């Protein structure tokens, strides 16, 4: 949910209530949309969807919050659920043990919840129990890490890892302004993960478009100390750098520490994931951080909203299509000083 629509939520809910009084709550008729459109611009089309409807019991389970982004997922999900009087959210303990996460989903099935929003620790490992939930008539919304069967979820919400790389690469190209001998460095996350490979692939392709390439590449492990180590090695290896893309803002805390220690200032840094402290640095403009690309930490919150729509048999407000889409892939925008205010409210604290 964007900042503006959050601010207008109250108005939107009010508008929704008005339309509720006029028309049946599950209505998707054009008239209903028109009523909302008159009330407020920002929440146009979603007004009737925000109106309280049938009670929805949603179970939510995610991996352990051992990373700023993962912690933000659960927090954003809980905050979003609180905004709706018709949602009852049951949150299971965050865990990296697939055995425990499977039993949490089994417990949700026993509790006869209406929907399950699941960010699996391991998509493949949670697939069998997700299929079991779907067979029990429960709407499963898959978040961030994909199941390996299409029967395991009604809707899947994904970030865009390759898109992150493309966004970062395109931004670097713009800033280099045709400088052909620019030295570009990349600090990746855990190298063997498919998501890291996708990010690097996108970065490489976008750079190739303007005739640049990655000259120096190191990999960290998404933690502060690994970021510090990788960046220190990188700065040793490359005497002159023009731009660095760091995949992850959590490890970025360590990366910036290493850069500070080295006293180097000849390059700029683009972050990844989009943590609030990085955005504040970009806004202040007094560090080498000039931009970051977002990997939304609001995926779980979006999952809860879609689960609610699915159970209440409503459509996605601004689409003509009367069913909620099968797959929603979120965008990876570049955040710079110019547009940081738009993204700061939904950024995560690392």
């Amino acid at each position, binding site marked *: 949910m964007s900042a503006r629509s959050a601010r207008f939520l109250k108005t939107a809910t009010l508008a929704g209530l008005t339309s509720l009084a006029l028309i049946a709550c599950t209505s998707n008729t054009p008239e209903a949309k028109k009523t909302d459109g008159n009330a407020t611009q920002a929440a146009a089309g979603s007004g009737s969807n925000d109106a309280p409807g049938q009670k929805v019991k949603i179970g939510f389970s995610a991996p352990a919050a051992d990373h700023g982004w993962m912690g933000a997922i659960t927090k954003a999900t809980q905050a979003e659920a609180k905004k709706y009087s018709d949602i009852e959210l049951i949150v299971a303990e965050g865990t990296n043990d697939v055995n425990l996460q499977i039993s949490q989903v089994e417990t949700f099935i026993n509790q006869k919840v209406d929907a399950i929003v699941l960010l699996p620790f*391991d998509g493949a490992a949670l697939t069998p129990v997700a299929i079991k939930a779907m067979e029990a008539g429960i709407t499963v919304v898959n978040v961030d890490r994909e199941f390996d069967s299409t029967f395991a979820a009604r809707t899947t919400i994904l970030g865009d890892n390759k898109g992150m790389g493309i966004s970062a690469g395109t931004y670097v190209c713009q800033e280099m302004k045709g400088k052909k001998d620019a030295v570009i460095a990349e600090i990746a996350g855990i190298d063997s993960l498919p998501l890291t490979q996708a990010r690097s692939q996108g970065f490489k392709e976008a750079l190739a478009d303007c005739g640049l390439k990655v000259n120096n590449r190191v990999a960290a492990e998404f933690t502060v100390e690994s970021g510090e180590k990788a960046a220190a090695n990188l700065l040793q290896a490359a005497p002159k750098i023009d731009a660095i893309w760091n995949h992850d803002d959590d490890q970025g805390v360590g990366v910036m520490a290493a850069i500070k220690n080295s006293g180097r200032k000849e390059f700029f840094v683009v972050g990844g994931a989009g943590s609030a402290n990085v955005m504040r640095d970009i806004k202040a403009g007094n560090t080498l951080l000039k931009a970051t690309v977002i990997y939304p930490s609001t995926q779980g919150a979006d999952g809860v909203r879609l689960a609610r729509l699915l159970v209440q048999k409503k459509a996605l407000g601004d689409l003509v299509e009367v069913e909620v889409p099968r797959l929603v892939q979120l965008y990876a925008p570049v955040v710079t000083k110019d547009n940081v205010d738009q993204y700061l409210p939904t950024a995560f604290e690392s």
Partner: protein
Amino acid sequence: MGRNLGLVVALVLLCLVGIITAGDTFATGANVLTILRLAAVIGVVSIGMTFVITGGGIDLSVGAMVALASVWATTLATQQMAADFHWIFMVSTALLVGSACGLVNGLLVAYGKIVPFIATLAMLAGARGLAEIISDRRTQIISVNPFVDFFGGSLIGVPVLVWLFLIVAALGWVVLNRTTFGRRTFAVGGNAEAARLAGIKVQRHTVALYVLAGLCCGIAAVMLMARTTTGSSTHGQLYELDAIAAVVIGGTLLSGGRGTIVGTVFGVLIFTTLNNVFTLNNLSISAQSVAKGLIIVIAVLLQQRLAARGSTP
């Protein structure tokens, strides 16, 4: 049953809380099976851990051994063999890998004279690293359907996983309480020097205990493979802590010489039921960890009282 009275009371109390707060779901057959299925995997690991701890050792590598066994038993080569002949290949691979790791642990401790904490810490790092190398950190999906169908299915209304847990627990009880092997385990754990003077081959016995723990990890790996239809280097994370916690609150002395399989089973059931009750009531994520911590502290405090009473008869 007398000395497990406290555990029975704790479990009954937990169940009462569950029935009062979420009776319509908690007291259903489906929910009981959910608790038992969760308890089964960690339960089998804990049975093996009970033997090692009773024998005066500790095994920090159980989670890593589960991961390595699950990965090794689901490689393309193993799955091909299983598909061509029988899924028993996957099962025996997992059991062999687990036992082999246990053997290395045992040899390092008994003959290498490395303290168990360090030897198994090395195995923890090594086995998980090897699992990552073999799997290239990717999740290996099991495509041998007969394997999944058998272990994921039910016999007489009870999941096969739960049967396996019951069988391992029953065998463990018989071996520990009704055989020479069991009596030697108590002797070695209580006082290794006295056991040696009494003619027990302490080193050989220690090796056997670690192999037993590794074998249990192999069985747990098979169960986890069936439950997730995958093998992965991330399986079994922190199982060593869960297992040690269950064994200790069950009443087995961390210093060795005293151990109880029944207590361990209750310990596992208490933790899994706690988990279930917290999830059913939508209680805070962190409160659950605090509750677990409290249970462990209370159990160990009680245990120390018992131990003190035991040493001054």
